[in-house]
């Protein structure tokens, strides 16, 4: 296989809270190739979001290395666009179009007309042309996430980093957004690193799924998915296998409750 786009090698991440030093991940390694829909999946506390922030450049590994195109990541930058879970990730004082244009101009990617055209193109792609001149507070949660995705894609980053972008949406909207993301991916084949704690979302969206265990986050297994929850050679469904891997060892008591919480 070709050289990986993103190479995460033996990365240990620690962060400080007021009282203690928390080890979020321990010796995590994985490689993301161009065009991958790479999923980081695990329960809360497995450090998946922290890992994504480290790839984003917001936090330096205590040990190990993260390389993008072979060079280590030093700081946040527009070559790794983040899409966050929070609805307040759009600048509320700018309209939908201005939000995308500002991203392009502030990062120095494009200027003036070119930025405007690029913004229109991607806003159209996520189906929000009619709302291009609306301010974010007039949009629904799903629409705000669409704008964030349009903004991320318009920047044409090397890799799109998505931190549970659909977690705060209602179930219907969430499914719609998943379909839309897949459709967009079919269209442009961008590379995405996607964090989620939902097993079904991981299977639907990912082509490769990295399972992480919690406290601290460690790699359990790397799985492939074709978008459908199929049984393997032993007749075990992919979702069941993921579930067993994630929860069998450390949470044996109420698997049903766990399932409900993490899949919902």
């Amino acid at each position, binding site marked *: 296989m070709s050289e990986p786009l993103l190479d995460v090698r033996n990365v240990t991440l620690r962060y400080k809270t007021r009282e203690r030093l928390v080890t979020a991940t321990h010796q995590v390694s994985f490689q993301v190739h161009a065009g991958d829909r790479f999923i980081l999946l695990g329960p809360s506390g497995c450090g998946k979001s922290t890992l994504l*922030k480290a790839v*984003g450049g*917001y936090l330096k590994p205590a040990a190990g290395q993260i390389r993008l195109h072979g060079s280590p990541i030093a*700081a*946040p*930058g*527009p070559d*790794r*666009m*983040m899409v*966050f879970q*929070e609805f*307040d*990730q759009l*600048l*509320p*004082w700018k309209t939908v179009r201005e939000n995308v244009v*500002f*991203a392009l101009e*502030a*990062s*120095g990617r494009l200027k003036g007309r070119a930025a405007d055209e690029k913004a229109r193109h991607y806003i159209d792609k996520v189906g929000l042309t009619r709302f291009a001149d609306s*301010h*974010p*507070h*007039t949009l629904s949660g799903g629409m705000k996430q669409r704008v964030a995705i349009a903004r991320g894609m318009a920047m044409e980053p090397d890799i799109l980093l998505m931190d549970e972008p659909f977690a705060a949406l209602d179930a219907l909207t969430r499914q719609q957004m998943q379909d839309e993301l897949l459709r967009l991916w079919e269209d442009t084949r961008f590379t995405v690193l996607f964090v989620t704690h939902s097993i079904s979302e991981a299977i639907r969206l990912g082509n490769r799924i990295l399972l992480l265990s919690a406290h601290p986050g460690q790699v359990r297994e790397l799985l492939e998915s074709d978008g459908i929850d199929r049984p393997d050679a032993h007749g075990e469904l992919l979702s069941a296998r993921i579930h067993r891997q994630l929860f069998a060892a450390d949470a044996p008591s109420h698997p049903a409750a766990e399932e409900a919480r993490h899949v919902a």
Partner: protein
Amino acid sequence: MLPEAVSISLPGQPAPVGSAEADAVERPLSLMEKLYNIGALRKALVLLALAGVWQAYALHLGNPLLFPSFTETLAALVDGVRSGVLPQRALASIEVLLLGYAGGIVLAALGTALAIGSRIGNDVLETLTAMFNPLPAIALLPLALLWFGLGQGSLIFVLVHSVLWPVALSTHSGFKGVSNTLRMVGRNYGLSGLRYVTAILIPAAFPSILAGLKNGWAFAWRTLIAAELVFGVSSGAGGLGWFIYENKNQLEIPAVFSGLLTVILIGLAVENLVFRTLEARTVHRWGMHA
């Protein structure tokens, strides 16, 4: 259980569908209702009623030396405007006020910049605002007179004090309240330093900054009038406070009232024209209510 209970209670209810009220899903409001929905009109009515009460009480009292009537006050106001004294005094007040206001804002901006730049700067600003914000600016007037003498200098000093702390306080808390997500978004674009502050932090904190500016204005206006009352004329041209004081000494009580009315009118005008417009254009349009 629940569906049964609902179906039992249904026959007892008047049939909603097909009745006369149910047909009118929408109906236009009557003229009175529409008029009553206009806030400005309601407030104008309140003002009119207040003027009426004032006039009635003053006529009943019949002592223009203590309490002139509304019409007498109005006449004095018109006189004052015609003779040019009142506008001149008002301008003198506003000029000093703007100087002090601008000075206070510049200092507040500097202080806040230091405070967001370093942890110790943050501690310094928090301590200073905690100390000086509760201190009424007018209490510093004796000291100001000692340091800067009778004149604009003293006025500006107390004005700066009255503006600086409330503005610094809310600007600083506004900056601190900028969501982590927005900060990360800004850095994601590769912004840093001054561009990061002007493009992300200031607009994100704008609701608080605007609230601070409004507060600062209100404090400054009050402080100025009070200070002028205390030591009156400065550098030849007194302000509105001095106008009030002077006329009281000459027992021109309707003119005193007209001076007070002018103070109120200017305060209202700034609040409603300047700050409301600014709010409507920014914070309300952006859906960012502080």
